[in-house]
């Protein structure tokens, strides 16, 4: 094994001085003197294909086998349309709330020091680490009409559990870390001299906020929003517990796919899954474009 890998892999990397501009640019390869290019490339591509690409390709093959009639009947049925509407609007509401509170949380965690800050900082990541089923039953217990929070809301006739608001609440929870964690590094990098300069030039604190700080925070907040929104669209585990799962009312798209599968309606499940998959890939493209834009700005 060692002999194979130390022989610099298969792709014949340009030897010679690793930092030499001519050596680096040849055919887009720059593998330097470090061994293992062929091995790591081969393993990465093979494993990626086996676990991710071939299974996803299977979905594409299966949906290519659907007739247009089958496809439309599943994708544009009133029940499916109601599910898209709910999923989209709930994820949108959760994303907007996460942007507003995410910026505040990031600001407070980066700029202020107060007792317990480390605990609150760690709490931000909890939704990443907590299994969604646990989040689901906990939120349901809290926001049901007899729960700790729900009983107060019930007095003013607000019912979160088993309603569209519950769907949004679960999405808010699972998407919570994204905005905070994308805004934080930008805030850390923000040069204090810029704020000082604004203040010196006579800007009030509010003007500095609105014209200097917020414009810088907007792109990362937007990336965070897109990430949280995408996560919300696909979320299943935490929502099925709190939503009540009533068709046309509180049924989200992933649940509709599961329901179709359980009824052995594979064609319907595949068609709706394809719509969802295309939507998330569109979002992924948007996020990558935003991220590239941000990195370019950061490099400047």
């Amino acid at each position, binding site marked *: 094994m060692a002999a194979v890998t130390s022989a610099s892999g298969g792709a014949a990397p340009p030897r010679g001085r690793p930092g030499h501009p001519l050596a680096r640019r040849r055919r887009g390869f720059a593998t330097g003197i470090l061994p293992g290019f062929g091995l790591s490339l081969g393993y990465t591509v093979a494993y990626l294909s086996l676990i991710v690409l071939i299974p996803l390709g299977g979905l594409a093959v299966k949906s290519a086998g659907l007739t247009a009639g089958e496809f439309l009947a599943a994708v544009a049925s009133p029940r499916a349309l109601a599910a898209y509407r709910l999923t989209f609007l709930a994820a949108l509401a959760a994303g907007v709330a996460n942007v507003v509170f995410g910026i505040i949380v990031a600001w407070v965690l980066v700029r202020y020091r107060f007792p317990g800050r480390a605990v609150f900082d760690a709490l931000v990541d909890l939704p990443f680490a907590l299994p969604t*089923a646990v989040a689901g039953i906990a939120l349901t217990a809290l926001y049901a009409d007899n729960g700790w929070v729900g009983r107060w809301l019930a007095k003013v006739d607000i019912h979160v559990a088993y309603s569209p608001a519950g769907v949004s609440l679960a999405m808010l929870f699972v998407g919570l870390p994204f905005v905070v964690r994308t805004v934080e590094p930008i805030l850390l990098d923000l040069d204090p001299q810029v704020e000082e300069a604004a203040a010196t030039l006579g800007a009030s604190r509010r003007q500095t906020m609105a014209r200097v700080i917020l414009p810088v925070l907007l792109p990362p907040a937007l990336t965070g929003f897109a990430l949280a929104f995408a996560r919300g669209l696909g979320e299943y585990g935490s929502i099925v517990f709190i939503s009540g799962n009533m068709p046309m009312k509180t049924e989200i798209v992933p649940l509709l796919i599961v329901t179709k599968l359980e009824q052995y309606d594979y064609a319907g499940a595949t068609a709706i899954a394809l719509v969802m998959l295309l939507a998330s890939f569109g979002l992924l493209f948007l996020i990558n474009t935003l991220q590239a834009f941000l990195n370019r700005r950061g490099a400047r």
Partner: protein
Amino acid sequence: MAGAAPRRNRTVVPDPRPPLARAGADSRFTRTVLTLIACGFLGLFVALPIVSVFTEALHDGLGPYFEAIKTPDSVAALKLTLLTAGVSVPLNLIFGVAASWLIARYRFPGKSALTTLIDLPFSVSPVISGLVFVLLLGARGLLGPWLEEHDIHIVFAVPGIILATTFVTFPFVARELIPVMQASGTDQEQAALTLGANGWQTFWHVTLPSVKWGLIYGIILCNARAMGEFGAVRVVSANIVSGTQTMPLRVESLNDQFQGQAAFAVASLLALLALVTLAIKTILEWKQARDFARAQDVAPIH
């Protein structure tokens, strides 16, 4: 320093935050109000749910709590969850190391496309992650007839659960490791190679030690997700008690049977896993910041 490192989402940022950084810029009133809003938000939406898991679980006291955990079905679920994570985490660990070595160390055509493809499972709904395996390997799937002929059962059995979990947790290690490996640079590796070390020696003695915290962080995140995955596993599992029921599925079925306290008891184990994960993460970030500061102290030799 931190700004120069290539930044991806959720990069582990070392924590050299200046204490009381320019806090004077906001008035005391603004500071108090914003801090209260931030802490109130996190308290209400994050802290309260986790607290409620443990209070609900211990609602009837310790006896019923342990009884719910010790039932054969719950123990079987625990074992299956451990088995699933025990297979998919090492698989994704080996992949993560290979992929980050490839992406952080070489430049080649198609690299950014490859990076996007590695992240792909993140943007696929868990339900669809399960569905793709049903469509590929299920009885009516593309390879279904062939598998049936050879009497191989994957979907609605344990291998399907492991496959779906591996798919869902696929990017975790790679994602954490790539930025750390990029930041650590290749100078020391090139020095080791020049001094006569072979590839594996360089990797074990030079590369791994310098990225170990990022690696461990990736592993614990991958493990937390592998043990807690619900949607994908729900789709590929027949959800038969004591057979293909993982702990999150056990939580669901207990909840459906109106055994609230038992559901929360099993859920509390998963919540504990999340808390331990976060504790390790915090320690790792602290260690990373310390190593970073130590590296800064060593004067560069020029």
